[in-house]
């Protein structure tokens, strides 16, 4: 997916961009509202991540202006403010959702998915691998025409593996991606979810392979 990140702190912007890139997303960065206008004029984005406090103005004003102009690219506001009034303001201005800094990439992705799902999604989000196609928005895997619903963690696990087929992910790596750092999860939790995902993928040419002592990878015959 292609994001436009409007954020004035270069450090944060760079790291968010890098992090999203790791998951295979394309991110353009605009440090000001003016730069954002330029980017939006030049390219189409699936979603805009918008900070509120920007050096050349208030993100909410920018958002209102865009909505009035009939531009309906989904927007998630990244806010450092927690007050209700601010949140209400943000939604009233036309944002689809907001996320409070600092955020978990997993949470951001979950919200992005939720927003896009609500908006009916974009066709190109459907991805194919071997004999299956995968729609992360609807969380369905279609194998030879048969649709199977993935549950949240199964979906995220599948996404991680699908973003780098054939790459081996250690249990730790998967654990870090799948669970919040706020919680402690036992190693066999990963084995449980891998087992569930394998069942969902049964009958497909794609499969999750256990590389003994190293971890898991997605391959196909």
């Amino acid at each position, binding site marked *: 997916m292609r994001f436009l990140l409007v954020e004035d702190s270069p450090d944060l912007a760079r790291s968010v961009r890098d992090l999203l890139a790791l998951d295979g997303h394309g991110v353009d960065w605009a440090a000001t509202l003016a730069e954002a206008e330029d980017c939006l004029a030049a390219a189409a984005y699936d979603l805009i991540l918008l900070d509120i406090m920007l050096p050349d103005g208030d993100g909410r004003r920018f958002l209102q202006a865009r909505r009035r102009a009939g531009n309906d690219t989904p927007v998630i506001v990244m806010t450092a403010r927690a007050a209700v009034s601010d949140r209400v303001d943000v939604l009233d201005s036309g944002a689809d959702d907001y996320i409070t800094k600092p955020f978990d990439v997993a949470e951001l992705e979950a919200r992005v998915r939720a927003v896009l799902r609500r908006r009916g999604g974009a066709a190109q989000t459907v991805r194919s691998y071997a004999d299956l196609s995968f729609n992360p928005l609807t969380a369905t895997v279609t194998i030879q025409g048969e649709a199977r619903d993935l549950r949240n963690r199964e979906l995220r696990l599948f996404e991680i593996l699908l973003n780098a087929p054939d790459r081996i992910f250690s249990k730790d790596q998967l654990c870090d*991606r799948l669970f919040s750092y706020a919680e402690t999860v036992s190693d066999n939790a990963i084995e449980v979810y891998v087992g569930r995902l394998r069942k969902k993928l049964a009958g497909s040419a794609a499969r999750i392979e256990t590389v003994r002592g190293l971890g898991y990878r997605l391959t196909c015959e």
Partner: protein
Amino acid sequence: MNRTGGSLRARLVLQLVAVAAVLAVMLYFTVRSTADRAAEATQDAILGAATTSIAEQLRAGEVGVEVDLAYATFSMLGAMGQESLFYRIDIAGKTVTGYDDMPLPATVPISLAPVFFTSAYLGSELRIAAVARSIVIGKTLVPVLVMVGQTRQGQAAIADRLANRAALLGLGFFVLAVPLSLLSAGSVFNPINRLAEAVRRRGPRDLRPVRDPTPRELAPLVAALNGFVARLRGALSQTETFIAEAAHHIRTPLSTVRTQGEIALRQSTDEATRTRLRAMIRGVEESARSASQLLDHAMVLYRSDQLEREAVDLSQIARNVARAFAPTAELKEVVLVVKGDEGPMLVQGDPLLIESALRNLVDNAIKYSAEETAVALTLSQAEGMVTLTVQDQGRGLSGAGLAELSRRFTRGGNVADVVGSGLGLTIVTEVAAALGGRFVLTEPEQGGTCASLSLPQA
């Protein structure tokens, strides 16, 4: 030392009374001098007329001049205040009758128009009118001078009497001025009292400028008051802005650190590094949450002080909070449901405080819930209270009471593995107290924790 600055009313009354006293004294002197002059003018007119009348009745007779003093004239002149009377008639410079040692005027009058002067005679002050004319005796024209003098003891007595009356009048005026001053001072201060009442009746968050009609003289005071209100409003909004700014300035760098940590974690394969990175991210998470809750807590305290109550739909807030937390719950495959009657459930309170409390309750519930469980928000209404129950299927409280848990920075004994600041329940408890509600934390038999926030119905 007395620093009250004294009473305006006393000052005003004192000044009014002083003015009345000055007016009374002025009245006395004015009446006195006017009465004196008026009495003198009247008596002079009569004296002059009498003198002229005597002069006019002088006739040249066979032997000399016939003088006919009118009894009535003298009787009347004397009757006015019972004055002593003296007269002198000179013909050709020789006194023919009357008091020949009576003092003459400084300048000899030349016509029948009387000349008045005052002179001492026989031990009294005499007011004398002098009239001159000429008569023909034989064949010569001779000058005649007629003078009538009068003491003015009666006039002085009349003036004294009038002055006494004026003094009484002045005194009466002064005595009357005192209660009138008190009354008028009262009426002057009415607008001030009204203004004070209008300001006192205002709500705690009513920082509109004062627009009540006030007398022109109070305009500077009202302007100053409005200036002060504006500054206060500015300072308060600065406090709110400060909280928001502080949040921004703390969270943005934390976000950077967290994101960088996550990237590093993804890219590193060294187990020791990964462990350290995990600890770092966890630390950031904890700081962010603590900062967030500290700011929330500050906000709760600040708004409790400035409490403003309005009718708030608790059901609406619960749904909004549930929706906001849905993606977070989803990540843990925790189902978040709102149960209870559709339609508004109005409570008395400050929407920001209520939302803050709800967020903390829901956040706690999700945080302490196990994977693939449910958190239920239930709304109910009873005995003038609206109650929101947040029920999870988590680990429970392990016996810790609410009193203990709602203490600041105190956490349960069974939550060391979960990030938390220990301020969440403190905030909820304080909100409940500020809004006149109740907060109860229980462990139901089927397990988990049940948090109930009750607020007075609107």
